[in-house]
Structure formats: C-alpha cells, structure tokens
C-alpha cells in the first residue's frame, strides 16, 4: 500500500501568477505523503488518494501539448453569478484547462464595475444592484483561478459589441443617422473623436492594473459599418483621412490607436481574427484568435501563422452551438495543427479555447452544457496528437463524467447509461 505520495513540480513557489510560459510539467512518485501541502492544493483528486485507496508505487510524468488551453464564458448576454464562475474554474482545473477567457461585457449588458467610470455599470448592467461584478468579485475570481493554475484573460471587446457602454458614457458610441437627423440608435464606438481615445486610455489603464495577466483580449470582431456610413461627421472624417469608401480603413485606424494605447500600458493583446484579416498593423507578439468558419478555419490558421503571428483556435469549438447527439466527438476529432504549413508555423499555434457564448446560456443550464463536452476539447489540447481513439475516449470521458457527478458537478450524460452516484439522487 502507498503510505506516501510525493508530488514534485518543476518550479517552486506558489506566490506568483501563472502565465503563458509557465512550466506545467509534473511528475509524481508514490513515496512520501506530504502533509505540508498548502490546503488549496488538496483538490478532490488528491483527497481521493488519501482515503483507504491502495496504489502501487508509480511514477507519472505528464506535460501538456499546448500551453494555452482556454474556456470562454460570456457574462454579458446573461449575468453569471460568482458561484457559477468559481465552480467553472474548479471543473476547468479538473480538466487541466488553464485560461479563463472572461468575455465580461458586450452589447446586452455591462456588468463590470469600473472605479474610473462607475456610470458604465450603473447605466449598462442589467441591474446595477444585482447583476454586477464588483472590484472584490473580480479579485475573487482572479485569485481563485490563480490557485488553480488558471490565467484570467479579460476581454473588453471594441469597437463593435459595445451598445451597453453607451448609456454610461455619453458621446462614446456613434449616433446613427436617418437621413439628416439622428435616428436615436447607436453603433460602434465613434473612432473620430479625441475624447474616445482619452476614454479608452483611462479605461484600459484601469483594466491593466486590475487584471494581472500580461494579455488583454481586445475583441475587434464583427464591426457593423452601417451606422458609421450614415453619420455625416464620419463621412467628413473619411474624406479627410483619404479612406474613400473603405470603412475597414476606419476600423483599422481605431484598432491601431487602441493597440498602441494598450501596448504603452505594458500589456500584450489578443484579438479576434478580423483584426488580422483587415490588415491592421499589430505587434509581433499579438495572438490572433481564429473563430470564423466561412473559410475553412485551417486556411486561416495557415495564413495567420504564415504571417508570423501566434494563433489560438476556437472555430470548431463553439460549445454554445448545441445539436442532437454526441457532438463531443466532433470537438474531440479536431486536429489543431492540420493545416498546410511549415513546422515553424505549427509552432506558432499556442492552443485553443472552447467557447460558451451566452445568448441561450445562464446559470440554469451552464454546467450541463459545458461538461463533459468541454472535456473533449481539454484532452485535445493537453494530450499527445496520437491520442484520438473515439471508443477509448468515450469510456474515459463517461467515467470522468461520473467522477464529476461524485464531486457535485452537474455534468450531463454522454449517452445512455448510469453512474453509481446520480445527480439529485441518493
């Protein structure tokens, strides 16, 4: 019987934050039971070893294939209570996912309580008293994640996806016009005013200090040009800048200034693929987030890496797109490096993220919709490329699902069958 368990990690010390370059190798020898392990490391997987289990002396050496293994949660389409986020972080840790991509604000609501601009959430949250993340909430999430080896990358998506920013920041969004008069509706952030860039600077100054990770996700996706095209001031500006009719140039103008601002704050950035597709000049250490499926995404991965940028894959892993049957299999069978390119290019793929967009998701269905399906993505990102047998994966994932149930996680079934401990049962 194993009386002692020794877990050794490559770098000592648990006081800093995990980052993209963290060494996540571990090996464990069944030798010494360390009772001085910090309480936080006593996750269920370890505690289950303490209770009357016998294991043979074993040596396990393990390490991830990709360094960025993320999960996106969307807290704008629906507010997610803190408890739901914390539980998700727990289960991410069980799945060895190490990046929490927090898509915190968007069109429908602005739950992030900013101390620089308190009106943003006061006016923009679904309900300013109950559907916000206070500074304390945010710190709780960051610390909870840190203790599980999970980085928190916040996304403040601009210039599109910003309708909820408008009420708390008058003059920030572009007023749309119907003929000669404002129509009353608003569009993306207005790129032509200095006040816009003052606002952006102050906001991202705060964001840079609140979120310790080196990277911030700046969004930049799905910018609708209709409103800009209707606005007379913008038309004047376009002419002045010599952009002609090409609004992607205006979009790039904004993004460029945003990227420069964020750089000057000492942060790196991740952007959705449109920023790259539209030819914006980005820093060499920018990470391009590939999400679209109109081109085969493999082609985009090839283009991004050929241009020398690091790529993150999400396109085949939109877990919010539910369908009937065992769709985890399609997620599992994705091969992130299956595109035409050199080894050097393939080295630029740092990993991927499973995305759970929130249009149809809130705390009532988040956990069963996430797990165990996201586990398929997690294994694809951690394990060797050769680990792809579906039957074998099914058996292990189904067992893992029962284990999640045992730990109190409301993970849904893969297929017909049962677990010894059912949810809501005995």
């Amino acid at each position: 019987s194993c009386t002692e368990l020794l877990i050794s990690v490559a770098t000592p010390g648990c006081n800093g934050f995990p980052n993209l370059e963290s060494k996540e190798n571990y090996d464990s020898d069944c030798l010494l039971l360390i009772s001085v392990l910090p309480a936080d490391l006593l996750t269920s997987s370890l505690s289950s070893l303490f209770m009357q289990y016998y294991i043979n002396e074993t040596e396990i050496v393990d390490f991830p294939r990709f360094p960025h293994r993320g999960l996106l949660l969307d807290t704008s389409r629906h507010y997610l209570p803190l408890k739901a986020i914390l539980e998700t972080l727990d289960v991410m840790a069980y799945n060895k996912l190490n990046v929490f991509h927090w898509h915190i604000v968007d069109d429908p609501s602005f739950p992030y309580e900013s101390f620089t601009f308190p009106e943003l959430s006061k006016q923009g949250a679904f309900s300013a008293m109950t559907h916000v993340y206070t500074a304390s909430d945010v710190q709780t999430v960051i610390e909870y994640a840190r203790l599980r080896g999970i980085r928190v990358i916040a996304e403040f998506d601009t210039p599109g996806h910003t309708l909820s920013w408008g009420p708390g920041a008058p003059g920030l969004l572009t007023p749309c016009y119907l003929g000669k008069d404002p129509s009353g509706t608003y569009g993306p952030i207005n790129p032509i005013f200095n006040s816009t860039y003052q606002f952006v600077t102050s906001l991202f100054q705060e964001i840079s200090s609140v979120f310790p990770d080196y990277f911030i996700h700046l969004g930049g996706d799905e910018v609708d040009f209709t409103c800009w095209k209707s606005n007379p001031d913008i038309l004047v500006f376009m002419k002045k800048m010599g952009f002609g009719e090409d609004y992607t140039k205006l979009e790039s103008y904004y993004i460029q200034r945003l990227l420069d601002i964020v750089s000057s704050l000492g942060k790196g950035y991740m952007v959705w693929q449109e920023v790259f597709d539209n030819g914006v000049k980005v820093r060499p250490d920018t990470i391009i987030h590939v999400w679209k499926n109109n081109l085969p995404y493999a082609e985009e991965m090839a283009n991004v890496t050929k241009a020398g940028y690091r790529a993150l894959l999400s396109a085949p892993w939109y877990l919010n797109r539910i369908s009937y049957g065992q769709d985890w299999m399609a997620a599992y069978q994705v091969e992130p490096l299956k595109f035409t390119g050199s080894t050097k290019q393939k080295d630029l793929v740092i990993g991927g993220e499973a995305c759970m967009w929130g249009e149809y998701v809130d705390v009532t269905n988040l956990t069963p919709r996430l797990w165990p399906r996201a586990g398929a993505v997690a294994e694809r990102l951690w394990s060797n490329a050769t680990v792809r047998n579906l039957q074998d994966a099914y058996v292990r994932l189904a067992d893992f699902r029962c284990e999640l149930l045992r730990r109190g996680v409301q993970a849904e079934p893969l297929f017909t069958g049962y677990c010894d401990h059912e949810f809501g049962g005995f």
Partner: protein
Amino acid sequence: MEGLNFSLNTFSENNVWKAFLINESEIYDFPRFAHRGILLDTSRHYLPLKSILTNLDAMAFNKFNVLHWHIVDDQSFPYQSVSFPELSNKGAYSYNHVYTPTDVRLVIEYARLRGIRVIPEFDTPGHTQSWGKGQKDLLTPCYSGEQPSGSFGPVNPILNSTYDFMATLFKEISSVFPDAYIHLGGDEVSFNCWESNPEVKDFMKKQGFGIDYAKLESYYVQKILDIVSSYNKGYVVWQEVFDNNAELKPDTVVEVWMANNYAHELSRVTRAGYTAILAAPWYLDYISYGQDWTKYYRVEPLNFPGSEKQKRLLIGGEACLWGEYVDATNLTPRLWPRASAVGERLWSSKNVTNLQDAYRRLSNHRCRMLR
C-alpha cells in the same frame, strides 16, 4: 378540482400573491385539448424521484395534465414488480436505480394532487432487451444460421408462457396505476431476429402468415390488447400498431410520433375512427441551436385534411423528452420553458399565435418558474 388548480395558476400568473391588492375579478378559462402530456423516459437514464416530482410541479405551472411515464425500455428496467421481482433485480442499472412500489405510489399521488394523470408505458414487443435479463425465455433467441447467436430480439410471440407472463404483469400494472389507460407501446419492432429463428418461422407457416412479419406483430399485439381489455383498461399505442393493421378496440388511442408527413397520418387515424394524440412535431429531445420553442409553438394540431368529426378525434398531444442524452443533470433546463410553448398550444385558443407576444409572456413565465 382541476379547474381550481388551473385557476390558482392563472392567479399566480397575474402576480396575485403577498401584499397585492386585486380588484374583484372573474376569470373564466378552459383548455382547448383534453390530453396535454409530457413524456419522460426513465429507462435510457434513471431519473431520481426528486427530478420527476420537480417536473410534475413544472407541468402543473404549465397546465399539463398527463405524465406519460415511459418507465422501461431496452437499456434498463427500473420498475420494481411485485409479481416479477427479478425483472428489476436483473434489469435495472443497479439496485439503487429502481422505482419501488412506494416510489411509484408517491409519483401517482403527487401528480394527482396537481391534476395530472399518470399513464405508464410498458412498451412491447420491441424495446424490451432489459426484460430478458430477469425473465428467461421471454425474448426471442436470434439465430446465426442453425445455432442461437446468443443475442435476443423482441418478445417471443409464439410461446404460451409469453402470454401467461404478460397477463400477470399487466394485471399488476392495472392495479398499481389507477388511470383508465395504459400505454402499450408497439413501436419500432425489428423483424430480423424473428426471421432468423426456426421455431418462429414454423409458427409463421402454421398460422398462414407467409413471410409477412407485420402479421406476426399484429398477432402478438392483438393478444396483449385483449389481455389489457380484460382488466378494464383502455390503451394507447404508438402509430405502428395502427399502421400494421392490428385489430383495435374502438376506444384505442393512437399516438402519432413519426415526423414524416404526420398530418397525413392524423387524417388516416381519425378517418378510421380512432382517437389520436400528436407527438411527432414535439420531440423536445431533438435539441438545436437557437430559439426552437417557436417551431413548437407554430404547430397547429388540427392542420390536417379531415371532417369536423375527424378533428374532434384529436384529443391532444405530448411533448416528448426521450432519455438517450437526458438525465437529472440537464432535464429541467432542456424541458422548460420549451415545453411551455407546447403547453400553450394545447391549452389556448387556436388564434393565440402571435410570436412576439408569446415571447414576451413566455420569458416572464420563465422568470416566474425560476422563482
């Protein structure tokens, strides 16, 4: 009694509780269709009692009045039978995955107090793999050439022991479940196993069925229907039983489930004079991305060619949540509020169809259900 339940629900829908003052109101309401059901499947996945009871509550909030309990199937047999304890001893997923007689009584009573009928379904002759574990010689042994292959098919229709067993089992079921109707299944009977079995082939010859195994299926179904009739129960069957020309009693209810051209099937069933219930467009286990509740809401059950008399034979419908991918971890969010769209379609007047208005009311109703 049911009316009182419904009126209380309507009151809550009008936010009438706590310190609210209301003007003296008179609300007069009644359902369009009499059979408004939810199908739950406790064989593909066991559903703990709590989960079933929670859903009975939700059904009551949505004025559903029938729980179609698809209690056993191929995968597991959780129903603990007093007459045949081995059925669940050997056929349930585990001893912890059973419904004891007490559990069953609890469900029935909990439902009753909410104005909900419980119609159990013991689906035969197909969908019975789990029955064979605890009842030897019930299922047809399949053959590989001259030898039994080791696998089993539908219930064996040629043995007297089969009908003795069924008589005893359905006698128990008839006394355990107080509703006037039992659902006897009869869907998706695969003939391959019967075709491979030499004794079955002999029987076919003897009966003059030729190679038409639908006749053998009907022979079996007929005898089951007679058994159940003798216990003074009515029966509901899946549409295949009607499609394959079994001889049905006039008060048989035929459940139309096949999505392809179901309006045509409703015509045929009602033209033949049988009562029908509609499930085909309401398979809620078929999830997809987006607001699919609108698809369920837009169904108009009486949109089928037929006379007034025929249309009166469509007594309602059921939203089905088959259990291949569903258990207590995801049942409630998958069923509600999508099933509410079906609930309104079955209760409300035919002209209540505006989607924007329905969206507004349904989202409010959803918040109310959360509360």
